[in-house]
């Protein structure tokens, strides 16, 4: 089963939350299936799902009807996803908005790996840009680093003011 998470599901925490929702939905679905088989008319309300979970289940239902087995398979895939996905940590100068998150996650899943997960953090001292930690490397593309790297140009700029 190939799983394509929406870009709004970015971090391992998001996947864990999604997994929790899917498990809850699966449990509800199992109960409802048993009720149907037992001809019990009472139908309990489905659990509240997030947008990401809805999209994921919609994609699943588009391929084939949702069954207990397909949900279990999805849970298994999500568990593997959490265990195997490459994780990138991006630190920005301010809390990342959803749009920024989605753009960056989409880039990572397009150019690096489809199952890439991204943790977002923020540090105001960066001023701007970002610091990316991926694997054992840290890539500092923050404005702070650029300013400090170019501080020798300060007198030159000062003379031109």
């Amino acid at each position, binding site marked *: 089963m190939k799983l394509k998470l929406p870009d709004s599901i970015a971090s391992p925490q998001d996947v864990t939350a999604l997994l929790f929702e899917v498990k809850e939905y699966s449990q509800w679905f199992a109960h409802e299936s048993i009720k149907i088989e037992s001809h019990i008319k009472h139908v309990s309300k489905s659990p509240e799902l997030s947008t990401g979970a809805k999209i994921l289940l919609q994609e699943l239902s588009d391929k084939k009807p949702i069954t207990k087995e397909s949900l279990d398979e999805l849970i298994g895939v999500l568990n593997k996803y959490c265990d195997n996905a*490459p994780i990138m940590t991006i630190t920005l100068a301010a809390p990342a908005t959803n749009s920024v998150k989605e753009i960056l996650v989409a880039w990572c899943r397009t150019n690096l790996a489809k199952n890439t997960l991204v943790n977002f953090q923020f540090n105001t001292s960066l001023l701007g840009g970002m610091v990316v930690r991926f694997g054992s490397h840290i890539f500092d*593309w923050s404005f702070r680093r650029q300013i400090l790297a170019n501080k020798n140009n300060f007198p030159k700029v000062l003379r031109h003011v």
Partner: protein
Amino acid sequence: MELTILQIFLMIDIFVMGALADMAIRHAYAHFKQPQKQIEEKAPLKDKPQVADHLPAKVRERLIESSQIHFQSVLNRSATTLERDLKTTTSKMTKQLDKVGSEIILSEMKRYRGDLEALRKQAEAIIENAQRDVVEHQDELKTEMAKKQADLEAKLKDEIIAEKQELAGQIDSKLSNAVASFLVETMQHEIDLGAQTAYLTKMLDEHKAELVKELMDEA
């Protein structure tokens, strides 16, 4: 006053000298005219033989010689006495003149010294007054200088503070402009996070190879 007494004294001396000179002239005149007188006096004797006729010629001649010798001796003694008196008078007058001169000199010196002393005291008083005036003037000048110096220092301090504030303002303004320019020139894109998306993706694109390599290494 001193000069008047000196004049009187000199006049008295001149008078005494005149009297002495007159006496000397009389004596001299008597001395040089006496032989003729004696001759004239002797002539009546010859004309009056009745008085000396009873004396022998030799006796009479000896008496005449004796009288002449005696007269000569008296005359000589008188001349000698006169000469001695004149010398004594001259000596006394000289001494007196010396004494008077000395007194005059002493008095003049005393007066001169008194005048000098008075002048010296006057000069000292003037100098003291001048020194006191100078000291007072110096004190006034010092006070005025200190006041002016304090005023100038306060004014200078205010000016320095004002200039310092102005310079600090200029420096702040220039520094702000410089920092802003520096940041703009260094970053060359918006600091707003929403506007950084292109920059962020651009940086990811530029380092894509490194990220892929890292991903492969991790795998």
